[in-house]
Structure formats: structure tokens, C-alpha cells
């Protein structure tokens, strides 16, 4: 009865694909892993704009907004998303990313304010654990 314990709210995650990137294998793997770990996963589908995703994430009030990027557009899309979250006073939302991103860019993205990046070959359990930890560190909201 893990979900009847009122003290532990179910973790809500939005998984988003933004732009022309049509690689959706990885994000579906992540979605299933998180669901099997008891989380609620809102999947946006392909080809969203940063504006659509940020508005949807706010309405869904997710703990974590996860963006999967294999198109190489990450240095353009992450800053845009962070900027929109700030403009809409939702910068307390945890932002995570995954896909294909070079190491140097990963460093820079962390400096910009992305909370977690998990790339190729990350075992699903590691993604689950780090999401739980991110939400625990943030605290009740």
C-alpha cells in the first residue's frame, strides 16, 4: 500500500521532447522505469515547443521536468526552458536532462542551473534513485 501513506506524496514527473528531435526510445525507457518505481509520469509526446512544455509542467505541477535531447540542440533548449520557468515564477521546479550531450556541455548546463543530467547507458535504477534524492533534497512544497 505504498500509495496510501499520506505523508509520502507520489513523485510527479513530466518527460518532454522538444523541437525536431524524434528519438523517443530512451524517454520511453525512462517513463516505464519511473512508473514501475511508483511515480506519475506525464509524457508530452514529440515535437513540443519550450513554451508548451513549461506551461504544461506548471499546470501539472510536476516535481521534476525531464527533457530528453539527442538532437544536439541542448545548448539552445535548456537555457530557453530555464528562462521561461523563471519568467513564470516556477524556478523551484527541478530540471533534469538526458540523451546525447557532450561532457563539456554538461558542465556548462549544470552551471546554468540544470539540476541533473544522466546520459546514455545510465541504468534505470540510477535515474529512479537520483530523482527520489532530488525531491527529498527539495523538501515538501
Amino acid at each position, binding site marked *: *500500500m*505504498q*500509495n*496510501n*501513506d*499520506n*505523508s509520502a*506524496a*507520489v513523485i*510527479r514527473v513530466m518527460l518532454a521532447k522538444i523541437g525536431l528531435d524524434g528519438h523517443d526510445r530512451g524517454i520511453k525507457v525512462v*517513463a*516505464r522505469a*519511473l*512508473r*514501475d*518505481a*511508483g*511515480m*506519475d*509520469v*506525464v*509524457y*508530452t*509526446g514529440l515535437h*513540443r*515547443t519550450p*513554451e*508548451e512544455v513549461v*506551461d*504544461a509542467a*506548471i*499546470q*501539472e*505541477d510536476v516535481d521534476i521536468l525531464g527533457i530528453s535531447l539527442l538532437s544536439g540542440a541542448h545548448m539552445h533548449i535548456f537555457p530557453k526552458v530555464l528562462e521561461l520557468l523563471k519568467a*513564470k*515564477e*516556477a524556478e*523551484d521546479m527541478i530540471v533534469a536532462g538526458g540523451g546525447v550531450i557532450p561532457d563539456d556541455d554538461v558542465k556548462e548546463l549544470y552551471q546554468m542551473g540544470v539540476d541533473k543530467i544522466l546520459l546514455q547507458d545510465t541504468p534505470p535504477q540510477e535515474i529512479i534513485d537520483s530523482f527520489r534524492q532530488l525531491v527529498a533534497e*527539495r*523538501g*515538501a*512544497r
Partner: protein
Amino acid sequence: MINRIPSMELAERVREGHLRAIARLITRVESGGDPEVRQALAELYKSTGRAHVVGITGVPGAGKSTLVTQLVHEYRASGRTVGVVAIDPSSPFSGGAILGDRIRMGDLVSDPGVFIRSMATRGTLGGLARPALDAVDLLDAGGFDVVLIETVGVGQDEVDIVRAAHTTVVVNAPGLGDDVQAIKAGVLEIADVHVVSKADRPDSNKTIQELKAMLMMSLEPGEGIWRVPVVPTSSEKHTGFGELMAAIDRHSEHLERSGEITERRRQIALTRVVKVAEEIVRDNFARDSRSQTEELLKKVTQRELDPHGAAVTLLKAMKETIHESH
């Protein structure tokens, strides 16, 4: 750690239509609703009752999410704002869920007159009706003119949710054969409007005719009685959604004109009160009375006490522990 805004403060913002406040309070009611949250909801309940609530049900794949998307466009074109609560099943194993209704609704966001919230059915004990209908209240209090609830028409909780709507729309896809029969048997009585979706498909005419024939049989003669319309829709051909909105509006006018709205409101109140009472009892069994339950179960298995006697004992003990704010 982040700054937690008190629920009462959020409630004030909900009344001003503040979308983030609505979103956050839905999260809090969904995760159980501690006394502070219940108090805010009780306060906001006074500001509800203005929205027209439409329940949309049908088997998975019937075309509900697609229809909701098109219907929202129609309402927006007619100048009304729309809130949507879209419910998807949870995994029976983990309790987690992949909520995919939004995939079809992507083009609706970035319009402040539309608010979409996804919700999971949760585990068997959790109870879906209370949080879903609390969410409807929050959207109502937030000033949305119409609130649509999308849910699959299986399971008592889902049926109860659509019963808590002013207008219930049942979505039938063509060619579902026996499935469609099964769902019709259960929800035929509760449909105020029938939709035959995917009307672009050649087999849709058969489904339309079947439905009409069945509705004719159950039709009581008389003046001023609501005749359940059958509305064909197609997202491929972009047809039928204006007619569907018109049918829902006609039903709303019918409720007002005939005075049936009073009975409907009473029915909704009944459903909700009973649902919450059930949830409190179940929740209490699962948590507060667990130790006592074990003791009683032992007595029942050893034939010292019968099940009915044990239940009465438990309920009596529960009276002491239930707090108003549950």
C-alpha cells in the same frame, strides 16, 4: 528546502484564477490533503457551483482525448474558458502511471483560458473520486466556465465520477463489437449525450444505427423529457464537435428549464458525500485501526466473533479517531 506557501494563501489566489495556485492545491489534495489543505478546500467550496461540469467516458482508445481537444477548441471559439481533468489508469503493480492524454492535447497549452491536469487512478484503496472531484472544484472556483473530466468508463470510481457531472458524454468508437455492448450495458442509463467517434470510418454508420435503435427502446414517452442525442464526430474530417458542444449546451438548458438541475445537484452531493465517507473509513482501516483490525481478524478466523460483529466494533472504535479535517 523551498518556501511552502500556506494552502489558505493559495486559496485566495485560486479565486483570482492564478493557475500556479490551482495546480499546487490540486497536488496537495491528491497527496491526501492534510487538515490545512482541507480547510482551504472547505473555504473554496463556497465559490464553486458556477462551472458546467461535463464527464466524458468510454473505453481506452475510444477517442476521448482527441474529442476533448476538439471540444476545447469549440468552447474557446465560443468565448468560454475550459478546465480539463484527464484520468489515466495506474499500474496495479507499482501504483505509478504513465499519463498520456496530454499527447493529444499539446496544441491547447499556452492559452491561459485552458487548464489541463492529468491524474492517475491510483491503487485500489486510494480512491479516485475524491481527489478528481476536488480538482473539479478548484477549477470551478478558479473561474473556468466549463470543466471536462476524461475517464475510462470501467470501475465503480470512474462511473461515480461521471455521475458527479452535470452532463455525461459516452464516447463509442465504431467496430468495438462486444466491448461496446458491455460498456453500453453499464453506462447507457447515465449517458446524456452519446458520441460515435471516428465517424470517418465506414463501419461508424452501423454503430450509429445500433445506438439509435437501442435508445428508442429505452425511450419513455412524454413532454419535456430529454432525448439522448447520438452525435457522430471525426477528428480526421473535423466534423461534429460544434454539434457536440451544442448538444451539451442544450442539455444544460434542459436541466435548468425542467428543474431537473435541482435533483441532479442533490445526486451529485449524495455521490460526493458517500464517496468521501467511504474513503475516510477505508483510509482509517488501512492506517489508524490496523493493529485493532489484526486482533479482530484473529477472532473472526477463530470463530469467536462473526464478521458483522467485528465490523461494528471497528466502526464504533473509529468514531473516536476520525478528525474533522481528515
